């Protein structure tokens, strides 16, 4: 009975977004839109959404189209695709946050996602009350929470403070308690979107650990990530979603290889880099928005080409509505497999803290020399508060194309297949034994 027993089955799922209407705010805006249409002008408020011609038709965008798959009990299924391919839309549909426009899906048992950690926590309520409230929001009954209560408190290690309002908790205690509730939900199907995961690295590790456990207990896991190494380690099977369609369903290694092929040509052949502009709006925080990302040469000219060993300047334009505790900007550099090569963070890593945010401002990150071999690299850009908590996280916001240069003077064009990093070096040869 263990063979081929689906717990989740999606049939021709589709999601259509109407572009002109996204964020339609007020009657006044609708009137101005109507007035523009009357005069035959284009919609003045239409949002430009990243998308390729095929998905858009007359102001509509199929974020997801005709996606069918099924997942068996105990399976860990990876989902890969570029930013904006439709992965997050798929998860939103499976968690019932939004309805599909077409198709249907069926589940056996309870579905949960680790997105929900701490959802609905109220600072004025005590830890105990929040555990019950959060549990109920996640779909547990009062009796169920009561049964697991002691276990949750023990797991969170907040014992003596359980009747204190959570506003007095340290952020670590807060996250532990929130995670403890989610961890005791025991869903039959767990959805993990690492792309959207917030919290510090330790917390993210905990999430991944929880995922492994869940699968061990016969639960089913759907895992979305840009980290191909983790994906390959954890998932035997994966789906590749591109431009809203399911283009491949098969063994993980093959799917990743296909995914990397689609990534290769992200910046046009004549460009040094590409910025995923849609991501800036999509991942904006109500009080903090990264409005622009630009790359320049070290002398401030627009970046036209980036060769091995060349330096660059990254300009992060932001808009902040308020101050944050210990604000920091973070930039991660990843290779083509999504493995992190460099992690820069104004503080504590770089030790150059940002004192105060302006209402608007620009952070400039100058890198003297980028010792990368030829190939495609990506930059994650984000804003962090209290040392470790992501406020804005733009994964793979920038794709860099590094062109080869004969740095070693050997006449060889080095690309990623020969290692990602170049180092200044010299060989010395001493025939015979070591000199005394």
């Amino acid at each position, binding site marked *: 009975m263990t063979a081929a027993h689906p717990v989740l089955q999606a049939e021709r799922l589709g999601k259509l*977004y109407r572009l002109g209407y996204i964020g339609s705010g*007020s*009657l006044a805006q609708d009137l101005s839109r109507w007035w523009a249409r009357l005069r035959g002008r284009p919609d003045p408020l239409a949002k430009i959404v990243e998308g390729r011609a095929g998905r858009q038709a007359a102001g509509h965008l199929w974020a997801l189209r005709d996606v069918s798959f099924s997942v068996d009990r105990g399976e860990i299924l990876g989902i890969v695709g570029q930013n904006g391919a439709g992965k997050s839309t798929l998860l939103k549909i499976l968690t019932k*946050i939004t309805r599909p426009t077409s198709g249907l899906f069926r589940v056996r*048992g309870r579905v949960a996602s680790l997105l929900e950690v701490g959802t609905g926590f109220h600072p*004025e309520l005590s830890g105990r*009350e929040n555990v019950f*409230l959060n549990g109920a*929001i996640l779909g547990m009954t009062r009796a169920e929470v009561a049964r697991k209560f002691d276990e949750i408190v023990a797991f969170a290690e907040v014992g003596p403070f359980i009747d204190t309002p959570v506003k007095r908790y340290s952020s670590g205690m807060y996250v532990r308690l929130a995670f403890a509730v989610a961890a005791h939900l025991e869903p039959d199907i767990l959805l993990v979107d690492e792309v959207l995961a917030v919290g510090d690295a330790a917390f993210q590790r905990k999430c991944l650990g929880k995922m492994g456990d869940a699968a061990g207990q016969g639960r089913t896991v759907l895992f979305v990530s840009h980290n191909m190494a983790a994906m390959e380690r954890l998932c035997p099977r994966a789906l590749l979603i591109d431009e809203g369609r399911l283009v491949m369903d098969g063994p993980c290694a093959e799917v990743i290889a296909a995914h990397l092929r689609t990534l290769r040509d992200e910046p046009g052949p004549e460009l040094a880099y590409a910025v995923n502009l849609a991501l800036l709006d999509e991942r904006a925080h109500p009080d903090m928005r990264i409005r622009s990302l630009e790359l320049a040469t070290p002398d401030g000219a627009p970046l036209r080409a980036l060769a091995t060993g060349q330096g660059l300047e990254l300009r992060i334009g932001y808009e902040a509505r308020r101050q944050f505790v210990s604000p920091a900007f973070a930039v991660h550099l990843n290779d083509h497999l999504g493995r992190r090569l460099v992690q820069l963070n104004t503080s504590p890593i770089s030790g150059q803290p940002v004192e105060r945010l302006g209402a608007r401002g620009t952070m400039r990150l100058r890198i003297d020399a980028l010792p990368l071999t030829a190939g495609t690299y990506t930059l994650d850009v984000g804003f962090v508060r209290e040392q470790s908590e992501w406020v804005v996280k733009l994964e793979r916001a920038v794709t860099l194309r590094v062109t080869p240069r004969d740095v070693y003077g050997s006449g060889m064009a080095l690309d990623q297949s020969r290692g990602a990093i170049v180092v200044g070096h010299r060989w010395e040869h001493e025939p015979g034994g070591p000199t005394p």
Partner: protein
Amino acid sequence: MDKGARAWTETVRADSGWFDLRLRELWAYRDLVLLFVRRDFVSLYKQTILGPLWLVLQPVLTTLAFTVVFGNFAGLSTDGLPHMAFYLCGLVAWRYFADCLTRTADTFVSSAGLFGKVYFPRLAVPVSRVVSGLFTLGIQFALFLAVCAWFMASGAPIRPRPEALLAPLLVLLMAVQGLGLGIIVSSMTTKYRDLRFLISFGVQLLMYLTPVIYPVSLVPAQYRELAMLNPVAPVIEALRYGFLGQGAFSPAHLGLSAAVSLALLLLGLVLFNRVEKTFMDTV
């Protein structure tokens, strides 16, 4: 035990009917409704100096203001009842209706953060707000009864009638009206944010169209029928008739009001369910 033999627990389709209201699901989440009620209550008064005392102060101060302005300066009739008791009765009842309406009207906008992260029956939010309003109503109603008792003891012409026993039904009726209208507005505010401004002063205007600070008997006879078509009007008049002995108690108007209220609620539920499914795409 073969877990594998279980049937599908749920099927989510693109298109479900207009009348697929999933009220059973809301019932399954009743614990959540109660916890929301508790959260509302705690968060409302924890950061204030006077705490729940505000619940008593608000109607007392408003009643005093009304007594001075409408009772004394303007000299509006109160059907021969003591001013304080008359205004307090109307105000306490009206406030419950207005609270239900305004606090459910911004459901989607105020809960966007929560709704964007996790699914639970969205109706739990407005329903919990209507229920938490009952606390306020209970405390203020006790105040009203105390004021009545005091007036009766000092010989004022207040004569409670058996119709007072209908009070729970009348309160339920106001809850249905407030909830129905509120979720209609909240469903529309997802598209038109400016409706929020309309609602705050619309409620104010509606109060003057409802016999709160004047008895319906003050309305010229040819318009009285029209005034009683307002679904809140017969409820407030019936409450006054029951507890104070003066007012227009009209079962026909109450029946009509109940029918209108249920229609509003049904319309609200249908709209709310439509919006709920795709709401996250519009904010």
